[in-house]
């Protein structure tokens, strides 16, 4: 079984998966952020997705996809206003706008979703590509999705390719030097380490690829 398009119910389920994922990865992300940062990432991400998932369940499928994404973003902005929390929130708010009016998200819509997500983060965070941020994972993800759509791929195939792109991009962050956030203070020491925010980006995509593959 696999999913060819997200409806509102699927989206709520996807957020449940993200919630579980970040609860599992909490300590890993704390440790990762702790290497060249302040260890808060695991806490903020698990809080952000737990709150968002619960808000979506409370709101229910009737609200529709765009409204649900907006609730997710607004909830995160409120519950986890760290750098990554606010950037992720901004991502969902922009994705909400990008898919406004749709009640199904196919491969093309998911490409719009992640492009808007990525561009929203770029605009709000003012980071450039190569600055060793989540952008260095999400921009390649959006590009990969756009390519898959042009190549006529199905949603599961497109997400599979996106996951591979995310993983490759995450590996690339190892050769970058952090320019933003608390990691920036570590400069050369960040070389060789994968970016913590980029890791969050990869986890988001991997979870979505799994989700569409197995639903």
């Amino acid at each position, binding site marked *: 079984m696999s999913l060819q398009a997200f409806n509102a119910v699927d989206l709520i389920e996807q957020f449940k998966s993200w919630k579980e994922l970040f609860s599992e990865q909490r300590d890993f992300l704390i440790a990762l952020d702790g290497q060249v940062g302040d260890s808060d990432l695991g806490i903020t991400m698990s809080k952000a997705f737990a709150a968002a998932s619960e808000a979506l369940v409370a709101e229910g499928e009737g609200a529709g996809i765009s409204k649900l994404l907006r609730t997710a973003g607004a909830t995160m902005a409120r519950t986890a*206003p760290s*750098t990554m929390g606010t950037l992720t929130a901004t991502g969902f708010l922009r994705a909400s706008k990008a898919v406004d009016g749709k009640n199904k998200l196919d491969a093309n819509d998911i490409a719009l979703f992640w492009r808007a997500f990525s561009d929203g983060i770029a605009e709000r965070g003012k980071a450039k590509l190569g600055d060793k941020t989540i952008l260095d994972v999400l921009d390649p993800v959006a590009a990969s999705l756009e390519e898959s759509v042009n190549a006529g791929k199905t949603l599961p195939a497109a997400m599979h390719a996106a996951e591979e792109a995310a993983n490759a991009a995450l590996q690339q962050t190892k050769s970058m030097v952090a320019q*933003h956030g608390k990691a920036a203070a570590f400069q050369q020491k960040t070389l060789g380490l994968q970016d913590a925010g980029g890791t969050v980006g990869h986890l988001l995509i991997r979870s979505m690829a799994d989700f569409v593959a197995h639903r």
Partner: protein
Amino acid sequence: MKKFLNDPVNFVDEMLEGIYLAHPAVTYVDGDKRCLVTSKVKPGKVGIATGGGSGHLPLFLGYVGDGMLDGAAVGGVFQSPSAEQMYQVTKHIDQGAGVLYVYGNYSGDIINFEMAAELADMDGVQVKHVVGNDDVASSVVGEEHKRRGVAGIFFIYKAAGAAAAEGLPLDEVTRIADKARLRTRTIGVALSSCVVPEIGHATFSIGEDEMEIGMGIHGEPGISRKKMGSADLVIDEMMERIFTEQSYNRGDSVAVLINGLGGTPMEELYILFRRVSQLLQDRGVTAKHVWVGEFATAMEMAGASVSILHLDSELDRLVAAPANTPFFQHVGG
């Protein structure tokens, strides 16, 4: 982890409850304890708001009161408050004269204060930003915009707060805050880690005989980690950094802030100040205003920072003005 707390998840909110119970001079808006404002907004005055992560008391909220700030958005431990919270504080303290945001140079705070300003702008509230970046250890000369904000923000609060209390308009208060920012330099040294309650173990480890000069107040790395030296040598090395940044001439006056990071006894802070004072005297520079104590902490971290504000006559007057906040009182003069 050895801390006085109940459920770590409630650390910040229970702390805030304690603060509201102890200090009726502050209250909160929007039904959200994390939106702290003065209990008596002054009609017509320029509002000054700040905000940032918890765990740094008296920063940030401790300076809300007469002669200093009007509101502070309170984040989780070492985490930014939300844009919404900043916006609620802004709306409440605006008296038609606009609001100045003074906060530290951290990406989470910047992103959220900018979002808050956009929201406030839609309500027609004029907002200006002054972003503290006093920590000389966190980036080189020429890259000052990358520097972290640390204890020196106290001087920005003090000068801007006094200016607003004098009734100056937003542009003037902003000019003064920015001048205080440009003339403030801080350098810190850490001897031990702190523990974030929800994490439960030390943020970083450091040897029993080591210190790290330039470490940030969340445990960000500094310039050099080395064997603990004598107090005088530590200060000599720290002050060297500050002296190469600004030209202090014979006859100049400065304000000095010796700040404990939380776990260091006051006795030691005075031993540090003694040496700072000697070095200033050697250069013919007068320490005209001196504060020694805890002004910007990192919970139980042992360590200290030195902030120097290069005075001119305007800053001299404003720094000396009276202030009365829950965590800081100054009888003018």
